[in-house]
């Protein structure tokens, strides 16, 4: 069994309370930021910004609240596997749905505007 990494016996890594408070504060601030960003017209980037912030918040929760930072490589690998296959599910679905107009896209329209971001008005 060569693949188990730095786990400590017993209680595992005990994070200081101050860290938890900091993460909590960061999550609250980011929530406010994501609401604020939604009211600013960023054109195609509203969606990307919202997802980036959500992704960052999720990473904070995973990394600190869920202790992945202190877990074995195997745990990290499991998480990465999940992300990878989620990306396959979402990404490969788009192959069909964004190429419906692949060769017949009327000129002057931007195919990338279909990628989820609202078309600029």
């Amino acid at each position: 069994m060569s693949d188990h990494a730095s786990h400590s016996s017993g209680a595992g890594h005990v994070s200081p309370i101050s860290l938890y408070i900091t993460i909590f504060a960061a999550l609250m601030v980011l929530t406010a930021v994501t609401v604020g960003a939604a009211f600013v017209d960023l054109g195609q980037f509203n969606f990307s910004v919202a997802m980036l912030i959500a992704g960052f918040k999720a990473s904070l929760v995973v990394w600190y609240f869920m202790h992945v930072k202190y877990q074995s490589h195997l745990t990290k690998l499991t998480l990465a596997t999940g992300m990878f296959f989620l990306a396959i599910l979402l990404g490969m679905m788009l192959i069909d749905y964004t190429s419906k107009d692949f060769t017949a896209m009327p000129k002057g329209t931007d195919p990338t505007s279909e990628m989820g971001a609202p078309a600029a008005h």
Partner: protein
Amino acid sequence: MSSTVANADHGHAHAHAHHPALQHHFDTMAQQKEAAVIGMWVFLLTEILFFGGLFVAYMIYRIWYFDAFAEASRSLSLFWGGLNTAVLIGSSLTMAMAVRGAQTNKRKATVNWLILTMILGAVFLGVKVIEYADKFEHHHVPGPSFVWAAEHEAPAAGAAPAEHRQLSLTPEQLQQTTQLYFSLYFTMTGLHALHMIIGIGIMLVITWMAHKGRFDEQYFTPVEMAGLYWHFVDIVWIFLFPLLYLVERHT
């Protein structure tokens, strides 16, 4: 049953007296705990793909019917949604504190933090009930009685002139495609709420176990597993909030 051979393999301290929570087919508490952690993460992996299927449907229809999604999203209350996000993040904090209490073998702290987490979870569900009731009132529940009334305006988007938005969508189309949005809204938030109810149920059991003193710093796996699950439910909401409430708020 010889565990000495296996011990040599693990190469770390082995409790000489077997812990009462050690199951017969494991050699050490560490092996047992690691198995549980990996098992939980593999379970969360399936949960990621479970919600992933919903996100696919959401993504396709959001691309197709962006305006309807934006319009329907504006009818959701940002106040309740934002409040719930804060409540759920707060409950993640209290959950992390509960696990910390178990790690440091503070029974009372663990129990209290767990109870606080459950209360916050219940608050979230209560707010969800208020929101759902509002949807019923406005006939925003998909099905035969679904009505998308043009005069309904979300308070936050009141500034936008109505005719501006009506330029691109007829009432018939809104009726049709906002319904799709609400189908997804109810499926997504409904499944999320179901996960929370299950989570609260699990926590009830674990709080009782903690109260009875079943855990110590060697063995608190159930608390940790419940924590992982609860944080995952929180993460799902972290994505659902912008996807459902914040489709397009700036017009």
